[in-house]
């Protein structure tokens, strides 16, 4: 099932147990966009946001923060978003972490690839900073958060 943006949404019977979106780790190499994401999710969106400048840092930060969601840039030097997601999943602590990609590459075959890799959804760049947090909340609200019922 996909929403109107082509994101993979899976409403479940456990929706009533979900934990509201609160903590987000954002991974973005561009300092300007990172600053906008920080502002958009924190100041505008009222979320607790931790920003990382690359995938390698994210591998350390994500299990430490235990976020509700990881917002992950795709094209980054060194370790790109796709490899970062793969490596995150190799760590049992991150097995259930929800990941949303943020990228300018949002053609249907790109989206299909991201979802097949286990991403919850895709935010297209350029994004609207004033609605970014709301978009993430909507994606988060549609996923099975079985982990949310256990803390």
């Amino acid at each position, binding site marked *: 099932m996909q929403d109107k943006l082509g994101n993979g949404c899976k409403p479940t019977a456990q929706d009533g147990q979900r934990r509201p979106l609160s903590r987000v780790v954002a991974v973005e*190499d*561009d300092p*300007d*966009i990172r*600053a*906008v994401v920080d*502002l958009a999710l*924190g*100041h*505008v*969106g*009222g979320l607790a946001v931790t920003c990382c400048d690359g995938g390698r840092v994210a591998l350390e930060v994500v299990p430490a923060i235990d976020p509700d969601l990881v917002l992950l840039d795709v*094209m980054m*030097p060194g370790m790109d978003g796709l490899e970062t997601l793969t490596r995150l999943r190799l760590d049992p602590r991150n097995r259930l972490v929800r990941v949303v990609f943020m990228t*300018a590459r949002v053609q249907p075959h790109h989206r299909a690839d991201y979802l097949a890799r286990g991403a919850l959804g895709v935010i297209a*760049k*350029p*994004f609207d*900073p*004033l609605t970014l947090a709301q978009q993430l909340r909507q994606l988060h609200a549609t996923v099975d958060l079985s982990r949310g019922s256990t803390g």
Partner: protein
Amino acid sequence: MPPSTCQEDPLAELRARFAARTQERLAAILDLVAGWRAGTANAQLDELRREAHQLAGSAGTFGFAALAEAAASLEAVAEQDDPPFDTIQPLLTVLTAQANRLVAAVPASRRRERDRVAT
């Protein structure tokens, strides 16, 4: 922190900072093109593609659509294997024009602040 209830643009400060740094980003792109033309490895082209990609993304996010489009066009050409310079030159001209327009719109006080930080 809850969103501000005032009507000010929460992005204004970041947008101005981005605009003030645009000339530096343009200079970096021009340097990469020069290095690539000098016949060095394709790594220059990869770096050019990355720089153009970043500029396109951030310019678009800040609402500078024309600059974003110019950078995205450059990124698309840089993704090709050994693209002819004839295809890059006009894109650089457009990119430079858009960047200059943006820089010209930055308040002088912001440029002075940037220069002070840089020195």
